[in-house]
């Protein structure tokens, strides 16, 4: 059951990415290009997704526990710290270069564009490196923290 529903959740997410245009790097880069060929479509993606999630979460949390697990696991960290801002800044730079964030990069994979085939393995290596840096702490890291 967990496998089936996990697959269906991913499928719905992926269909949303493709239909919304979020899986097209050209559209993402044009959204980020305020001074040029600006395409505001992605604001509608974020708006539709966030409002749906805001309402749906409140319905889901009425139950004492999720349907296929024992408890809700919701982030409790509230600190706006250096790893958060450094990480978000690095992510934003990469997003601005490639036009891909993690979800759309995965959905684009089966279409086999050369840029995607380079991006996704590099992203997985990056996730591994990032997890190591985070685990070791940021004390010795010189980052461009905002």
């Amino acid at each position, binding site marked *: 059951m967990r*496998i089936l*529903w996990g*697959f*269906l959740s*991913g*499928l719905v*997410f*992926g*269909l*949303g*990415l*493709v*239909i*919304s*245009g*979020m899986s097209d790097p*050209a*559209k993402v*880069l044009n959204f980020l*290009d305020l001074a040029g060929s600006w*395409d505001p*479509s992605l604001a509608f993606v974020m*708006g*539709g997704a*966030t409002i749906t*999630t*805001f309402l749906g*979460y409140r319905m*889901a949390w009425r139950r004492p526990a999720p349907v296929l697990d024992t408890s809700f*696991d*919701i982030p409790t960290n509230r*600190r*706006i710290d250096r790893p*958060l*801002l*450094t*990480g978000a800044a*690095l*992510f*934003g730079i*990469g*997003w*601005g*270069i490639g036009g891909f964030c*993690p979800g759309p990069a*995965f*959905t684009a994979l*089966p279409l086999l564009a050369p*840029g995607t085939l380079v*991006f996704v393995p*590099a*992203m*997985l290596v*990056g*996730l*591994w*490196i990032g*997890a190591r840096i*985070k*685990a070791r702490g940021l004390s010795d890291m010189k980052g461009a923290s905002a």
Partner: protein
Amino acid sequence: MQIVTQTAFTPWASLGGGILIGLSAVMVMALFGRIAGIAGISQGALGAIVPLQGAARDRDWRWAFLLGLLAAPLAILAFGGSVVQTVPQNLPAMGIAGLLVGVGTALGSGCTSGHGVCGLARLSRRSLAAVATFMAAGFVTVFVIRHVMGGL
């Protein structure tokens, strides 16, 4: 040289697709009690192959979720739809971009879905700070590449 591909403004398709993304985030919360952050889901799945500190242990649904993501464009093509996509062709730049996205989302504990959709829906100030930061970095990066450097 990065050629700018013009794209059409698609408010209704984008809104509809966004609602599907939200629906999926709600499914993941209602069924598994987890945040549908793709960076976190990938890390959890990756933790099954290589040792990864801090990766989630509930890997079964995470793998299935990623397979669902991969199946989505194939399903659309199989039902006669089309998937429009223009991926940048500068491969070294795409390698650097992928690395930055991976390191950044791991370090910052989330991406467009985890902080963006799910975090904002939880009214998390931490996620709002992350979203403001990566959006600003994205705007500045595209401005520098397209309007200062004149393309990649």
